[in-house]
């Protein structure tokens, strides 16, 4: 039973569990967008500008987050890494969707043999551990940010294609979809007008959560030195370069890690919040 309680509408809208998380996630992500755009409005040192006299310096007035082993400003690198790190994650997710969406929709709508063959092919890719397959693909292409984007996308799409297929299958069992077919609508029209609108909300949850995982994977690859190559500012790569100076300059280590965590957290919060909003099941309380 839902307990009816008197509450202010603003409070009800703003501060309930899932919504609160969603708001926080959106705010964090907006914060990153502002941070990423800030070089356009504020004067920030270029990320590659070296100052060899103040290497490994701690936070100070000129360098609010200190400098790295080459005397580059950590804050500037952190800010210039926003479009690189987040951009790479979104580009990867776009590539994954570009394969997974048509693959899943076609398999679900076509059904029969086409469905079986398409899902079998996806199963073959899925039979490898995702990161292992991505590592192998990067190994054969040579280490670079592009290679890691391609490697992750190529190893990641089948699981998303499977989820899209499941969503489309359950969406096409609704009565109004059948009615649309019966009234003579073409397949394409039914997909675009009746199935996709149903699929989009749960898909938004998946996209948000998967982008978070993709961002983690990409920054891990950069950390291992097989993703973004120096001198590109990228959070994982910054951490990789900070490793030898671990004990002398812990500030180099702290900030990029926090940045990755905050970005991943934002995407996870948005995904979970959206999921809670869409979840209409009522669990029985004991």
């Amino acid at each position: 039973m839902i307990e009816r309680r008197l509450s202010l509408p603003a409070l009800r809208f703003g501060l309930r569990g899932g919504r609160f998380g969603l708001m926080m996630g959106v705010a964090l992500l907006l914060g990153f967008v502002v941070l990423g755009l800030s070089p356009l409005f504020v004067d920030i040192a270029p990320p590659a500008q070296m100052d060899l006299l103040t290497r490994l310096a701690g936070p100070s007035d000129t360098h609010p987050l200190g400098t790295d082993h080459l005397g580059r400003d950590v804050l500037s690198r952190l800010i210039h890494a926003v479009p690189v790190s987040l951009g790479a994650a979104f580009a990867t997710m776009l590539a994954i969707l570009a394969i997974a969406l048509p693959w899943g929709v076609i398999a679900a709508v076509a059904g029969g043999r086409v469905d079986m063959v398409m899902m079998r092919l996806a199963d073959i890719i899925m039979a490898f551990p995702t990161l292992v397959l991505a590592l192998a693909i990067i190994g054969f292409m040579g280490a670079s940010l592009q290679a890691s984007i391609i490697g992750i996308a190529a190893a990641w799409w089948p699981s998303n294609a499977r989820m899209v297929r499941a969503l489309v299958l359950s969406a096409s069992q609704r009565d109004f979809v059948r009615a649309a077919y019966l009234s003579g609508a073409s397949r394409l029209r039914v997909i675009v007008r009746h199935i996709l609108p149903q699929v989009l909300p749960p898909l938004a949850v998946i996209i948000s959560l998967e982008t978070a995982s993709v961002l983690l994977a990409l920054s891990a690859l950069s950390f291992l030195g097989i993703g973004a190559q120096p001198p590109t500012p990228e959070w994982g790569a910054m951490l990789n370069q900070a490793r030898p100076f671990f004990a002398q300059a812990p500030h180099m280590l702290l900030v990029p890690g926090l940045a990755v965590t905050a970005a991943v957290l934002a995407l996870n919060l948005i995904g979970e919040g959206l999921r809670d909003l869409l979840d209409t099941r009522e669990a029985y309380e004991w």
Partner: protein
Amino acid sequence: MLRFILIRLAVAVPTLLGMSVVAFAIVAIAPGDPVMMELRALGVVPKPEDIAALRAEYGLDQPFLLRYLDWLGRAVQLDLGTSIATGRSVVTEIAMRLPATLSLAVSALIGAVLVSVVFGVCALSRNRGVAACMRGLTILLVSIPSFWLALLFIYLFVLTIGWGRLVGDGTWSDLVLPALTLGLGAGASLGRVVYERIRAELSEDHIRLAIAKGLAPRRILISHIAPRIVGPLATAWANTFGALLGGVVIVESIFGWPGLGQLILQAIAQRDFPVIQAYLVFMGLIFFTMSILADIVVFFTDPQLRRTLSDD
């Protein structure tokens, strides 16, 4: 039971063949000619007729299908070629480091399963504060990159408190920190699955009946919910193990754990294709075996599935 396993294995054969095609094709279509690479590794300036002779010797002048069958024939006999960098058989190289990687992945998995159960069940606590805290902690732990967590752990435990060592020699005590690093994140994301599954069960009518009968929550959880979620959870465990097999690479390189991670990173840097290929084959096979085991658990714990299979 036997019937199910036989059916499952029969279904697995095409997938296995497909996997072998992927593993072979990734080398066959890779940029860079293996013959040129080997000659360069030997430090020889090649003449065109030498190249042609070597290509013929390796069978590279044959069509794709024949080369694949030839490769598959040798792969089945555990002959996956020799490492370009060390000149040793890649199977030996992998076999040397595989136990360390597997023990790390397995102990991380065990840790993750324990963490996930605690997190998943606590997130359902009736105490809203506890539930909200657990859900928040879960999302936070899922979001922390394992490599950063590893560095933080090293800073805290090794450099500050002095509990562990940075350069391990593969003894059990060196396993704790890397396994903890991997297990926490994996456990948190598994905890989400546990939470989701229990919540889904809580919306079912049989649970409503159990609550109406006045059973204690713990009793409901253990005898009504647990048996129904073990199957799906086993699948999630297998998937987590797959993720750990990849994640191990990241953590091994930080903690200096003597597993496959170092080997594969070196192989990528040196473009040592046979090693990368063998790594893909072995990890694929291990993950594949885990998936089959998970399917068997699903079969065992799902009476409906068992009945339909014994009927037809």
